[in-house]
């Protein structure tokens, strides 16, 4: 069962390499992604056996795939994201479309692997596997400054993951059976000092991936320069890898070190939230704005996890999913506008509500989800996260809370500049978005509201993870 989460995207990706026709390629990719989604729905609703075979005997590493609530929620997010992204961007023309889609699906396989891996070495493998296709996607199909910027991104994250590799090596040396399985990592007897060392090594990787202040500078540039489909994957799913890593590895494995660093990390994150929010206020490029907004949101999730209160972690678990959905929605709207008008500068937009009311409504819908308006999905998550932060430290929560206001400022700025006002020259060239994108947006918006009003299924899904984390 679980192996098909890897095989399905990979096989589709390989198949795609041989399909030259653009339309057929797109259809194939969508069908493949939909199949994965179906699989994910089945997997999240049923009990799934772990997949475990021998891999590298002399390194004591096994090929283990397993799921729990945390993995399930992210698998679901990944599985939803890809078809959504593929359908929404189906009309976008790329040179060598089949290769583009193929790489995208390779990324999906990598992401699935990251969320499923029960073995540290395997985890690292998929961690990189998810990165490399993205590097090519951005560098080949990105904007004008793509090469240098993607390169910086790649080296940055690659360096980060190397630190994690050292951490894995370090832990591996300290386990009784020298294996890489998460279970034996859990039973490794580390002193406080050793925990801090390993913690630092892992944390750098995750911090860069998320990214949290001040390691974030690659992100806006990359988001701006990447083809939007890739940006969506990155901001919806890839950044979750860092948070996932913290929840899966850092928190359970190094409780002492984790506790010792909560203050530092939370303060850093909160600072980053405000910082990114302030910068977002001054952005004119819609993609950069969403990027900084994403940094702020991820910062909040990180702060919540590090506040180490069960409420906040519960909120973060939910937000992992919600943020992904919301941000994809925003990106799709931004992409439709960019594809049709050829600009990302919000100064040149305006009047969307008059020209394309439906798109404007969808934009406003996602914008409000982005600022966590109640009855949208983000509210539930942020509410719980803030509560937990408040429990951790009221003052920090109050400071972090300022981001709620700042988020309103930049999001409404965006809405105002894009949707309202008289129809601008650029917007006037727009025609109706394609049916696919529209349908995806509507479905996503429905998800936004359904999980916003009734988030209980997601809580139930992640209850076991929360329980485990609390026990530790």
């Amino acid at each position: 069962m679980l192996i098909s989460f890897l095989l399905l995207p990979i096989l589709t990706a390989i198949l795609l390499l041989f399909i030259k026709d653009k339309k057929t390629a797109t259809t194939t990719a969508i069908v493949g992604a939909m199949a994965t989604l179906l699989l994910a729905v089945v997997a999240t609703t049923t009990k799934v056996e772990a997949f475990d075979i021998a891999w590298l005997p002399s390194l004591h590493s096994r090929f283990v795939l397993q799921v729990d609530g945390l993995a399930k929620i992210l698998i679901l997010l990944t599985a939803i994201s890809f078809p959504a992204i593929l359908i929404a961007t189906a009309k976008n023309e790329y040179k060598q479309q089949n290769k583009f889609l193929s790489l995208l699906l390779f990324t999906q396989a990598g992401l699935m692997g990251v969320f499923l891996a029960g073995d540290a070495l395997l985890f690292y493998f998929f961690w990189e596997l998810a990165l490399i296709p993205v590097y090519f996607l951005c560098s080949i199909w990105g904007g004008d400054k793509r090469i240098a910027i993607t390169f910086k991104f790649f080296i940055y994250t690659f360096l980060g993951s190397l630190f994690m590799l050292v951490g894995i090596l370090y832990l591996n040396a300290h386990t009784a059976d020298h294996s890489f399985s998460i279970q034996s990592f859990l039973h490794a007897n580390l002193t406080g000092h050793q925990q801090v060392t390993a913690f630092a090594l892992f944390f750098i990787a995750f911090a860069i991936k998320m990214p949290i202040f001040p390691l974030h500078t690659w992100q806006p540039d990359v988001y701006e320069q990447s083809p939007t489909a890739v940006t969506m994957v990155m901001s919806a799913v890839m950044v979750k890898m860092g948070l996932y890593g913290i929840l899966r590895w850092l928190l359970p494995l190094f409780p002492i070190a984790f506790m010792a660093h909560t203050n530092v990390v939370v303060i850093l994150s909160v600072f980053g939230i405000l910082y990114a929010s302030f910068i977002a206020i001054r952005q004119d490029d819609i993609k950069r704005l969403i990027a900084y907004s994403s940094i702020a949101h991820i910062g909040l999730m990180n702060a919540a996890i590090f506040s180490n209160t069960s409420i906040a972690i519960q909120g973060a678990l939910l937000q992992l999913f919600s943020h992904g959905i919301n941000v994809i929605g925003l990106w799709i709207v931004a992409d439709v506008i960019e594809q049709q008008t050829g600009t990302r500068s919000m100064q040149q937009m305006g009047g969307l509500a008059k020209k394309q009311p439906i798109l404007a409504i969808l934009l406003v819908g996602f914008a409000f989800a982005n600022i966590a308006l109640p009855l949208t999905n983000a509210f539930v998550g942020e509410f719980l996260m803030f509560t937990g932060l408040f429990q951790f430290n009221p003052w920090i929560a109050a400071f972090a809370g300022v981001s709620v206001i700042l988020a309103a400022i930049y999001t409404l700025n965006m809405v105002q500049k894009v949707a309202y006002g008289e129809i601008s020259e650029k917007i006037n060239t727009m025609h109706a978005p394609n049916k696919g994108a529209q349908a995806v947006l509507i479905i996503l918006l429905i998800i936004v509201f359904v999980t916003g009003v009734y988030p209980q299924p997601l809580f139930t899904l992640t209850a076991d993870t929360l329980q485990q984390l609390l026990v530790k």
Partner: protein
Amino acid sequence: MTFMKIVIALIILWPLAGFLFNGLGRNYWSKKVIAYKATGYIVCSFIASIFAFIQIQNHGAVSVHYFDFINTATVKIPFDFKVDALSSLFLLVITGVGSLIHLYSTAYMKEETAPHYARYFAYLNLFIFSMLLLVLGDNYVIMFIGWEGVGLCSYLLIGYWFTNGAYNYAAKKAFIMNRIGDLGFLLAIFWLIVKLGTVNYSEVLTAESLAKLSSADITGITLLLFVGAMGKSAQIPLFTWLPDAMAGPTPVSALIHAATMVTAGIYMITRSNILFSHSEITQNVIAIIGISTALLAATIAIKQNDIKKVLAYSTVSQLGYMFLGLGVGAYSGAVFHVITHAFFKALLFLGAGSVIHAMHHEQDIRKMGGLKSRLPITHITFLIGCIAIAGVPPFSGFFSKDEILAAAFEKNKIYWVLGLVGAAMTAFYMFRLYATTFLGKFRGTNDQESHLHESPMAMTLPLIILAILSAIGGVIGIPHSLGGHHWLTGQLSSIVAEPKEAMLSVSTEWILMLVSVAIAVIALLIALARYSKHTDEEPTTTLGKFFYHKWYIDELYQKAIVAPLDQFALFLKEFIEKKVIDGAVNGTGKLVQFSARKVRLIQNGQVGYYILFMVFGIVTLFLIWFNDYSILQFINKLTQK
């Protein structure tokens, strides 16, 4: 129970249905269908509310559970509704006034095209839905959902004419100022959850919970709640959005920015009065801010020439009164004023809307005048509204305002004196407005004059109903001193523990009433005398300019807060982000490249040098070997913390 469950669900689902109906079908329905449906749904909701009201009159408060909104190991927030004396009153006001305003809107918005017409009603319905959520919720989180929801609708409606940049700006301003308040509210909720583990009224507002909270907790929570109320109810310092909110269609101003949404703060504080009563500090803060707001807004209102702006500042001022009432412990008085204010302020706004409608969207009162004869119904109803707000008996405003003033007198004489000053100013600016608009001779263009007409039935009918309500609304709270039995206080007794009931002697109350009536009447007469014939020109005195320019508060905010923050953001974006952080990242890359350029010079192509370096390399190896101990020590020192 299930019966009430259905009734309450109906109250709230009708507006939601209206929202979905109009929102999704905006391109399909005719304007007529839209109007009927939108208004009809609210009326249905109103009927259900009446039903619920009667039910709880007979059977007491009801709390119903629908589903768990959030249910995790540590925190549980049910999606519960509660109908009790307080919320049922608000239900009636919201749906009642709401129905009237919907009705009014059907005519007022006639010029819009069908999709926008539908959009307008969808927003309006959504607003009613959110407002109902706010008052029906059985815990602070549900209240907060409604709380933000109304903010959203306010935003959408202020920016209803979205092609106008200034309107959008006003909408954004309203939302953001509200959000500042909301943050306070949120923090208060967190505080409650962290301390008590619950946000349900039935568990928070009890003696046991109070015992669990220290006095600092209570003060902190109540102050934060008050911050929330400040934002929503436009109190100092978060009041500047409300006058700007007049950018929206006039019925919206009537409904949202006068009758209902802005009173949410009063509802919230009244709802949590047990907490507030336990914090002397908070009460004083509320009273001081309330009275300051009342006076500040009144002074501004005196000098405004835009008909809606005057009413807007008047609203702010009246809200200030209500907060004064809350601050001095007169919760039921505040609620009373909310209700009467809803009547007469909605009336005034709708009247203003009628005038604007007749004047073809002219809002400057200096260009009006003499409308008395042309718009008879509007004139009469507007006059009733003015009298009511001025506090002349036996119109409703007199009773509610008097109750607050009496409580203020009891608490602190200064509040009372200031309150009186405010009352006088209220009477003055309202009659200034009335006189300038309706009396004298017409000052508008000929074109406008030729088209002057009374508004259609759909607009006048609500005016008439509201005028009647404004006139007689006071009956629900006739004080004992006047021979009444104050029905409202009785109603709210289960919610509000009115601590000092009837401490003032009857004679004192009489004197107070007489004084306030006298002052109000004198003020209104002066206004009438002065403005029946003349209009205000541009103010020349310093004070006049100061008031005219709204105390320069917007400019102050702009200069002291917005601009510096904007600059700060720019500084972060341009300097810290690009130069410092990214500079450090890129600098590392540059450093590598720089050292690459330098180090590669060693490889100078001369084999002699190469061998020389090799010899030195061997020598170095030997030296390291000789000094291994000291080097190791050094490294250990470096690597150990």
